[in-house]
């Protein structure tokens, strides 16, 4: 009896897991492999890719080219710096806001969360064009600050939502206990609220940092020529230069860097977040 239940339980598990697994396989893993392959192939006569002429024609020329010119490493580094700065600014803006939403009366919270995600109701490009109109008269258009402002604006909700979800679950009794045991408001925040919100900070940071790295529309519309990020570079290789192997190689380098960073973050989280699982 129990054995049969176990088998059907397994079947249910497979039935639930199969569609998303298939989806990821076909639309994530397979394209990824295609890009890896493309990065190892030759450029075609009129751009794009040359016809595949057997395994022997595969080479790491594109990677060698990337390593040979420091400008690529510089743009990659600058992209990471811009992503990090955007993430930090998002965090600083989102934390008090998420905290306020989490502390407001229950019936008002849903409305406030709705307001946070309301900008998604209009088109992303339309909203960026609106920023052109805001920044233009102020004389800030086509500056690094404009790019950062746009990136922060676009990604702020992705920081607010995971933070709010985390902060909302905090047991108010913990803060009362801390206060009762002698902690002032500042200490209560740093010793209780902040460490318990680390999982929310991590997911928010990941949701902001990674998309910003690949972002090309915001720097293109709001930034100057010197403000291009790795995303613009990749887009340029595919659409303007039509050097697909180089564009693919850039994509692979970026993906590898992001994966490395994610692995590091996961490792750090596992070591530093003991006990906070209980509230996430």
């Amino acid at each position: 009896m129990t054995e049969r239940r176990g088998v059907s339980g397994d079947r249910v598990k497979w039935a639930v897991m199969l569609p998303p697994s298939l989806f990821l396989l076909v639309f994530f893993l397979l394209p990824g492999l295609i890009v890896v392959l493309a990065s190892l192939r030759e450029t075609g006569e009129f751009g794009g890719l040359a016809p595949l002429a057997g395994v022997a024609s595969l080479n790491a020329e594109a990677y060698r080219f990337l390593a040979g010119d420091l400008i690529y490493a510089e743009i990659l580094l600058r992209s990471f710096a811009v992503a990090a700065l955007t993430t930090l600014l998002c965090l600083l803006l989102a934390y008090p806001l998420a905290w306020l939403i989490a502390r407001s009366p229950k019936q008002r919270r849903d409305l406030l969360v709705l307001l946070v995600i309301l900008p998604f109701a209009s088109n992303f490009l339309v909203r960026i064009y609106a920023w052109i109109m805001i920044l233009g008269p102020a004389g800030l258009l086509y500056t690094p600050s404009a790019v950062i402002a746009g990136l922060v604006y676009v990604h702020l909700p992705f920081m607010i939502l995971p933070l709010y979800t985390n902060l909302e679950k905090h047991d108010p009794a913990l803060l009362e206990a801390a206060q009762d045991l002698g902690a002032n408001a500042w200490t209560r925040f740093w010793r209780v609220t902040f460490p318990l919100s680390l999982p929310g900070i991590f997911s928010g940071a990941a949701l902001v940092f990674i998309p910003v790295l690949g972002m090309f529309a915001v720097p293109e519309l709001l930034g100057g020529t010197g403000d291009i990020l790795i995303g613009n570079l990749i887009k340029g290789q595919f659409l303007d230069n039509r050097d697909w192997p180089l564009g693919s190689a850039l994509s692979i380098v970026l993906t590898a860097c992001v994966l490395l960073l994610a692995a590091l973050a996961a490792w750090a989280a596992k070591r530093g977040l003991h006990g906070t699982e209980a509230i996430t």
Partner: protein
Amino acid sequence: MSLLELRNLTRRFGSLEAVKDVSLAIEAGEFFTLLGPSGCGKTTILRMIAGFDAPDGGEILLDGISLAGVPPEKRPLHTVFQSYALFPHMTVAGNIAFPLEMSGKSAPEIRRRVGETLELVHLADKAASFPHELSGGQKQRVALARGLVNQPRLLLLDEPLGALDAKLRVEMQSELIALQREVGIGFVFVTHSQQEALALSHRIAVMRDGRVEQCDEPDTLYTQPANRFVADFVGRINLVEVEVTASSKVLLGLRSPCLGEIAATDPRPLAVGERGVFALRPELIRVHGHKESADLKNRFQGRVRELLYLGDVTHYRVELEGGQRIEALMPNAAPGRAKFHEIGDAVWVCWRHDAGVFLRD
């Protein structure tokens, strides 16, 4: 001077008066309990002592000094919360060290005190565990250790045993008594369980609707309840509506519409015709099968309607001739016999003239 004094404490929530003019004094080293049904204001009082809530009237004095305007973090008293409120991201040792760190103790002293306190609550081997790795009883003891480690003047406990299962609760009660005796810190304990209150406390204040109905030692509370509510709330009791028919210095004559004459005793001079209730504990009533063995003055005939066999004792519900129902508790103390009477048996119910108390309405 009392350690803690509540003077005419009042707290209103909108139109609801949660605490009405409560005055109490708690002595150093005392285990003091606020007992009452939910919504009686006991937790509100505790929160006002801790500083999480401010009274609308009256004052709270600690060592004779008013606590008005002193925030919770500056009050030399700690709370053990009903949910324990242990910090989930800190180890057991980290939780217990927290109040010491807040008061700026040195690292070696913190280490020493945490170690000692862990010994005190028998958790020395759990110092590095996280709260989610502990059982309910262990969490309870960490919460106690955290409240006691910085030697507060007073420890406030808000239904701390409520979340434990019945067996563990009895165990923790004994531990709590031993612990309180050892540390000598005054405890203010809030509970709705009269059994817990009787077992643990030096003194109990029974509360109802924001007022203290009676404040006494457990045995006084049990044997001499001040009114019908206290009699009914603390322990099981029979309440018989009566009218005074005769009152001398000690002897008291009562008449019940159902039972007729009842002989009782009361040192108070009571007026003939005064109405009230005669309160009688079930364990002071004897149930006999023969009239001859029921030789006490208060003797009534009836029939067993219900019984609850509990092994050591049996609860009998006897319907007397006038229709009055009386609950009696008899120990099953005869060797080889499980219980003495069965449902439907005709029995005699009797009690000594000094067994019950007369309570004025």
